[in-house]
Structure formats: C-alpha cells, structure tokens
C-alpha cells in the first residue's frame, strides 16, 4: 500500500497524464478536422463523390486505418526519446508542454492562413519541450533524423515524382489520336477507391502520432513497459474515434474550397495524385516513417500537375508553400520550448499555466470555428467566408495553383506527326485542285481556240468558194462573150455568104 507521501507525489503526475491524454485527443480531433480535404478534395472537385458521402467515407476509413498499422506510433513511443533518461514526475509535464506548443503553432498558422503541418508541429513541440525540460541527451537524433526529419523532406518529393510518372502513364495509355472519346471520365470511378485509400493511409499515419505521444507518457510514468512500445487497445480506439470525429466535423469546409474554384484537377490527374499519395503514405507507415500527409498530398498534386503537357511551375507559390513547411518544425519547437520553460521554472504551476493556455486556445478555436461555421446549409455560400483567415481552403487544393496548365497544351510527337501528315495531305489536295483548275482552264482555252480556228476555216472556205464562184462567173462571162463574138462572127460570115 503506497504511503500518503507517495500518494501525494503521484497525484500531480496522474493529473498531468490525464491532461496530456485529453489534449492529445483534442490534437487528434483537429488533425482530422484539418486533413479531410487531403483525402477528399480531388474526388469532390472532379465530381466523383457527393460531399456528404465523401466526408462519411473519409471518417470511417480514418477509423479503420488507425487500427491497420501501429509502426508510426512505435516510432514515437519507443524511438525518438530515450525513455531511460526520463523522470516519471517531470516528463508527462514536458509532453504536455510540447502538445501546447504544437497546438499554439497550429492555431497561429490557422489564423494567419500560413501553410503548416500538424504532424511537424507535434514533433517540433515535443522536441523543443524535451530539449528544454530534459536535455539534448534525451533525444535519439539518429531515429529523429531517419524516421521524422528525412522522411519529411523526402516524402513530398517522392510523392511528386511518383505522381508525375503515374500521370504520364495515365495520359499516355488513354490518349487517342483519332479524336474519338478517350474514356478518361472513367477515372472518376477510380477516384472513389483512391480517395478512400488516402483516407485509410491518413489513419495509418496521422492517428498513430497521437497514440505514440500518449503511449510515451504512459511509459514515462511507468504505466506501460518501455520494451513494449505498442499502444494499448483503448488508446488506439480513442485516437481512431477522435480523428474520425474530427474528419467528419471538418468535412464541410472543403466544399467552400471547391466553391471558390481553386481546383482544376482532371480525373486522370486526380486519380494519379491520390494513388501516389496513398502508396507513399502506406509504404512509409509500414516502415514507421512519420510523415506529414498534407505535404505528401501537396507534393502529389504538384507532381501530377507537372505530368500534364505544357505545364509550368509557379515558383513563387511553391516557394511560399515550402517555406511554410520548413518553418513549422523549428517554430513549433520554439513554442514548445517556451511552454517547457514554464514547467521547468514553476513546476506544477507551470503545467497549470500551460493548461490555461491550452484551454484559451481551444476556446479561441471553437469561437472562431463557430463564427465561420460551415455546414450543409451554407456550404455553397462562398461569400460568407471570413477574409482575415482561410481555414476553409485546403492546402492541398491551394498547392494545385503551384502548377499552371495551359488550356490547349502543345501536341505530343505522335500528334505532331499526325498533324504534319494531315497538313501534307491537305496541301497535296490543294495542289491537285490547283492543277485541275489549270488543266480545265487550258482545256477551255483550247476549245475556244479550236472554235476560232473552225470559224476561220469556215470563213476561209466561204471566201474561197466566193472567189471560185466569181472566177467561174468571170469565166462564164468570158465564155459567153467568146460565144457571142463567135456568133457575131458566124452571122457576119453568113451575111457575107448571102451577099
């Protein structure tokens, strides 16, 4: 039986752990609230799914995904922090401070409309708080680098390359050169599967992070053994439900994104981007890499945009997104470190100060979300969105603006060859027409000349005949004269004979 002193020592720790669990679950809820758009922005944009169906599907699959793999949770609970360096009295308070740091940074970026990542904010907050509260030696930088920092840098690039290749394949296989329907509209059916896969993958990665944090707190206070870092069943269930509830609650906001006409994603492109996102996150989850699903989905959307012909990168937009991504981890670490300073300086009072800060942030988020509440009734009313911040605009959808795709892209090599062949045939036909016209003209001219010749011949024959007739008339006249003379001469002879 524990002594009264021991009991008094445990009570603040229990309180801190309970507060940590509650705050972690709230963080999970906001993660789901924010990230629904990652999974469902493209199928709704291309019309593959009705918004209500898409949101319910995403919530259910996030729930299932949370149970699918716990490798990421194990990375956080049993890899990043050296458990043997922690004191059970102090560390839950440090985790709590880290969570406050993450939520504060998320809130700030949400208010200012800056691109951010909930996952990186969580890691940043935890690392900053641990550095201040425990020390550098408490962090395993090898695991941090290989399972968090490098995947964070590499995964969006990987997803972009895969999406680029997949989009090229999708367009090349379905391209038709005879101008007949290509059937690409059918990719909308496929998007129902791929967007579901993204929601599932989101559950396998994002829900795990909170499970890992809660399990880490349990290990620190000795409620769970360090050599079994997998989360307990009730922790998995609670986190899965929190992320699913957040996903369902935040679903309506994405409709406004679409109402603003931010996205122009073709079905083949959306299908490729989502397949790439799901494949990257699922493969990473299996290896325990903790990724930012927002960044992976954004990388895929940019990559698939570049996979379309004639597309150009808007480097200013890409730069803004990447700076937001790079800033998140150190900025959240600083905020987490400040929160940890409260704990180091004031002990339990510091925890309570952090709890008050967290409560104020939660109340602020709730108030702001009520002010700009989006539901089935006003989802299409795009004019009522608050201009100061854009919580209703999906970062994934915004990242589509990083690539400009022309309405009429340049033709492919084969299309160019076909166009050249058509042009050659057209010119040949034109030449033939010209030659036919020339031949017809020449024929007409010959006909006219022939007629003229015939007329000339006729005139000549007529003239000849007239001359001939005149000659014959003259000859006849001459003969008549000759006969008349001969007659006169004969008469004269006859008269002389009579005489």
């Amino acid at each position, binding site marked *: 039986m524990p002594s009264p002193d021991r009991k008094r020592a445990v009570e603040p720790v229990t309180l801190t752990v309970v507060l940590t669990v509650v705050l972690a679950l709230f963080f999970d809820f906001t993660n789901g609230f924010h990230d629904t758009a990652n999974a469902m922005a493209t199928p*709704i*944009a*291309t*019309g*593959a799914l*009705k*918004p209500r169906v898409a949101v319910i599907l995403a919530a259910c699959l996030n729930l299932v995904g949370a149970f*699918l*793999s716990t*490798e990421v949770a194990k990375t956080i609970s049993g890899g990043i922090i050296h458990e043997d360096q922690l004191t059970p009295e102090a560390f839950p308070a440090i985790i709590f401070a880290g969570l406050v740091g993450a939520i504060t940074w998320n809130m700030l970026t949400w208010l200012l409309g800056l691109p951010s990542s909930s996952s990186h904010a969580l890691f940043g907050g935890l690392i900053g708080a641990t550095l201040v509260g425990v020390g550098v030696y408490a962090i395993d*930088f*090898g695991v941090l*680098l*290989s399972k968090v920092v*490098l995947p964070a840098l*590499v995964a969006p690039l*990987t997803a972009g*390359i*895969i999406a680029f*290749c*997949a*989009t090229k*394949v*999708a367009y090349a*296989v*379905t391209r*038709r050169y005879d101008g007949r*329907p*290509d*059937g*690409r*509209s*059918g*990719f909308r*059916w*496929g998007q129902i*599967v791929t967007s579901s*896969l993204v929601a*599932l993958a989101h559950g*396998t990665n994002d829900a795990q992070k909170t499970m890992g944090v809660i399990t880490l707190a349990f290990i620190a206070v000795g409620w769970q053994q360090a050599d079994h870092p997998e989360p307990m069943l009730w922790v998995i269930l609670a986190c899965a439900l929190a992320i699913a509830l957040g996903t369902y609650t935040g679903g309506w906001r994405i409709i406004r994104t*679409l*109402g603003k*006409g931010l996205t*122009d*994603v073709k*079905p*083949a492109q959306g*299908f*490729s981007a989502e*397949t*790439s996102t799901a*494949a*990257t996150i*699922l*493969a*990473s989850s*299996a*290896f325990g*890499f903790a990724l930012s699903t927002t960044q992976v989905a954004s990388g895929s959307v940019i990559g698939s945009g570049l996979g379309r012909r004639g597309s150009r990168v808007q480097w200013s937009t890409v730069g803004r997104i990447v700076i937001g991504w790079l800033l998140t981890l150190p900025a959240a670490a600083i905020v987490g470190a400040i929160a940890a300073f409260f704990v180091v300086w004031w002990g339990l009072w510091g925890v309570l100060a952090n709890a008050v800060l967290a409560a104020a942030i939660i109340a602020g988020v709730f108030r702001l979300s009520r002010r700009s509440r989006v539901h089935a009734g006003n989802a*299409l009313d795009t004019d009522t969105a608050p201009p100061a911040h854009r919580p209703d605009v999906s970062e994934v959808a915004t990242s589509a603006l990083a690539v400009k795709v022309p309405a009429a892209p340049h033709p492919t090599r084969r299309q160019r060859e076909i166009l050249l062949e058509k042009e050659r045939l057209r010119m040949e036909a034109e030449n033939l027409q010209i030659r036919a016209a020339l031949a017809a003209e020449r024929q007409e001219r010959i006909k006219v000349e022939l007629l003229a010749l015939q007329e000339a011949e006729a005139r000549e024959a007529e003239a000849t005949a007239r001359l001939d007739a005149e000659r014959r008339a003259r000859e006849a006249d001459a003969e008549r004269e000759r006969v008349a003379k001969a007659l006169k001469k004969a008469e004269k002879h006859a008269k002389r004979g009579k005489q």
Partner: protein
Amino acid sequence: MSISVDWIAFLQVFAAAIVGAIVIVGCAALGLRLLVRAGRVPVVSPREFTDAITIVTAKEASRAAKAAAKAARKNPLTLAQKRVALVGAYACFTLCGLAVIGGIVIVLLHR
C-alpha cells in the same frame, strides 16, 4: 552520439510506392482504354456542384455521352474482338483491385 540513417529503407519505400502506384494507375488506364475499344465509353458526370467544377458541366457531359454513343455505333471491330477487349478491361480492373488489396495486406503483415 552516433547518427545512423537506414537509407535502404528509403529506397524500399520509394520502390514499393512507385511500383504500387504505376501498377494501379497503369492497370486502371489500360482497363479504361480497353473499355473504350469494346465500345463502352464511360461517361461519368459529376454528381453535384457542377458550377464549382470546371472539368465537366452537365451540358458537356451530355455532349460527351452523345459522342460516346456515336463512337460506339461506328466501332469497326467485330463482336468477338469487342468481347475480347471487354474481358481484357475487366481483367485489368481486377488486377488493379488485387494490387490495392495486396498493398494493404503487405502493410498488415509488416506489423
């Protein structure tokens, strides 16, 4: 303090993701191509929010449906060739589905 990074794991993730994505997208695209060859051009119009979607409006969808019907009427293939194309299309879609299920099973086996 030694920092070791498992670079092979990164390559494995990249290889698994690109193979999975290309197989799924390639099979789906080939399936659609064969479906079109079989004279069954899919025209899937958006269910809702047609004003927010710049890709296909209701008018464009109806025009696409008419073009698809016309293309199907003018299909020069014999009935047997069309059947082969249709079977090929369904085989591609099945392969696509199997690839998805296979991916999830691999993740489950990795636990």
